[in-house]
């Protein structure tokens, strides 16, 4: 088997995972860009989106369930910001981060209570769950369309940020919080809209992710959330294209590492298994630490100086 034939399926699934991480990563990077807050609860918002889809699809037809799920997720993101982050606006950054961890803990425990801690099967969305063959690799359609959906959404978002009034306000707030306020920008609205956009993308991301991997558990959001955050740091926090590229790199690397034993063995590089798959999650963090140590602002991040 040629090298390409061997690794193509891994790259395919890596790109797909990367696309899903990208949609979550945008939520992290935008919030961090404006509030300087690692929104630990974002991964759990993603999980709740998946879970609410499970329950909604049980009672509503899909064409209703999907919009209702998106609205609920957006409402959740908005509420979290208003209830858990807004009162702490003047508090030290550590308090806000602790509040985010608290929200994450609460959402996970709520999900545990509601589901009884059991795995919930994600409803099958027709057409995108169909089986297709591409370059000799069999997979589902969602795997193939995810990167395109992601890139389309990102292009729209970048346009919004660069060419609309609210986009300008967002850029202004992320540059300088206080000056923006003095210039008459309604900070709270801008922050709310950031959370709404982030949650909206997380909702779309959850639809793609769980159609691909159809099981939702209370901890489903944890790992994808962390990886998406790492993707955001990798690309340079605050930069949307950076987050997307970071997410694709992490997705592909992760997938290749899971298959590294097989790839190397098929090429005759190693004779027996080494067990690289153990490090598929850890590798993301190794990447994170390397980038933090050598290029702390990420691939595309702006250089910032501490103001005294």
């Amino acid at each position, binding site marked *: 088997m040629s090298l390409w034939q061997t690794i193509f399926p891994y790259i395919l699934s890596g790109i797909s995972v990367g696309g899903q991480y990208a949609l979550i990563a945008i939520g992290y990077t935008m919030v961090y860009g404006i509030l300087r807050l690692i929104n630990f609860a974002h991964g759990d918002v993603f999980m709740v989106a998946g879970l609410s889809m499970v329950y909604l699809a049980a009672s509503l037809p899909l064409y209703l369930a999907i919009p209702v799920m998106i609205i609920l997720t957006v409402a959740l993101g908005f509420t979290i910001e208003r209830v858990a982050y807004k009162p702490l606006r003047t508090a030290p950054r550590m308090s806000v981060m602790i509040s985010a961890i608290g929200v994450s803990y609460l959402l996970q425990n709520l999900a545990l209570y509601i589901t009884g801690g059991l795995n919930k*099967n994600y409803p099958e969305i027709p057409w995108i769950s169909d089986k297709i063959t591409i370059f000799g690799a069999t997979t589902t359609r969602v795997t193939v369309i995810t990167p395109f959906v992601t890139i389309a959404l990102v292009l729209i978002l970048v346009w919004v940020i660069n060419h609309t009034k609210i986009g300008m306000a967002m850029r202004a707030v992320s540059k300088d919080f206080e000056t923006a306020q003095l210039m008459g920008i309604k900070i709270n609205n801008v922050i709310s809209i950031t959370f709404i956009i982030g949650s909206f993308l997380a909702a779309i991301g959850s639809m793609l992710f769980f159609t691909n991997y159809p099981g939702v558990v209370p901890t489903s959001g944890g790992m994808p959330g962390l990886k998406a955050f790492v993707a955001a740091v990798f690309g340079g926090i605050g930069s949307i294209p950076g987050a997307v590229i970071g997410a694709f790199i992490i997705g592909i690397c992760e997938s290749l590492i899971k298959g590294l034993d097989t790839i190397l063995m098929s090429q005759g590089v190693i004779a027996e298994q080494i067990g690289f*798959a153990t490090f598929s*999650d850890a590798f993301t963090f190794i990447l994170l630490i390397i980038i933090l140590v050598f290029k702390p602002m990420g691939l595309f991040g702006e250089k910032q100086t501490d103001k005294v």
Partner: protein
Amino acid sequence: MKRFVALGLVLCMMAAALVGCSSGSSSSEKTVKIGVFEPQSGDNGAGGKQEILGMQYALTKTPTVEIGGETYKVELVYADNASSNDKAPSAAQTLISGGVSVVLGSYGSGVSIAAGDTFSAAKVPAIGVTCTNPQVTSGCDVYYRICFLDPFQGTVLANFAKANGATKAYCLAKQGDDYSGGLCNYFIEAFGADNCVYEQFPADTSDFSTYVTNAQNQGCNVFFAPVSTEAAAQIIKKASAQSLGMPILAGDTWDSNVILEAAKGSDLDINVTTFYQEGANPEFDNGIKAWINSDATAKSNNGGNDELAAVTAMGYDAYYVALEAVKKAGTTDPAKVLEVLPSLEYTGVTGAIAFDEIGDAKRDSAFVKKCNTTTGVWDFVTEAKAQ
């Protein structure tokens, strides 16, 4: 000042909680408590709930027991070990402090191994229902079990794979899971280590597509994945989407309607080994199905239908083994119950149960079932004996 508000809050909570602890139930009727040490959440939550169903059904059939000439009411006391090895010891301690005479469980071997020491320290006997890893009983003097062991199950599965023409096996286990890791290990031992590819996926993995690709690229012709039902459903979906092209083999955890549901409509060939084949005892089958259908909670705990899991039958038998034990001991004192367990014999719906000197069940047969992907039920394949 806020500090005192917080403190006040805490004091109120403490006071409330202490009241809560002291208000125990005090009925005049004599009761014997049986601890149910099962996962009700986490990876193995679905399986644990199905195992509990067997015990609950047995309780409805036999709610009382004669101990030393007196009639005792049986009460099941539950503790959720959350499929997590670090929560298991305190869940076990909750049962022990609740005054149970004997403990049943658990589904999943890791939690049983983890809690063994707690039971041992309190001299409370535990009867494992479907924990198949040898370590459950080997290092613990109070743990007994009514199921077969992984070395046996692994051998049966390896022989079955070989008999069906498999030459190279792909084995997949979950990292840190003693059940899947153990079973894979014994399968590999029996199948031949040179012909096996063994991989472990980290906890919280949801993307199994790469593992399916690995199996295909390694040129394997059997896919052995004795993992929890939660991961199993994901593996089946991916195997079906990527046209796996080889039969899937698994152990007793896969004997669940979660698997049937996930595999329905696909073209996969799934075989499992298990403890009980539906139809072996029609009276029990019909009785428990009627009960599951009449009880909404039971039905939802069984996954929404009345398809019978082998672990439910095992749970049913375990309940009666516990009753036999307290009957024979003639007291509810756990230490006395422990003394009679080695010589206990009972014939249940899943076969004759007796313990050897380590505390393991003397069982020498397992059923092999095949998933019928068109009708969504298990078809009986063969009854395998140890060689």
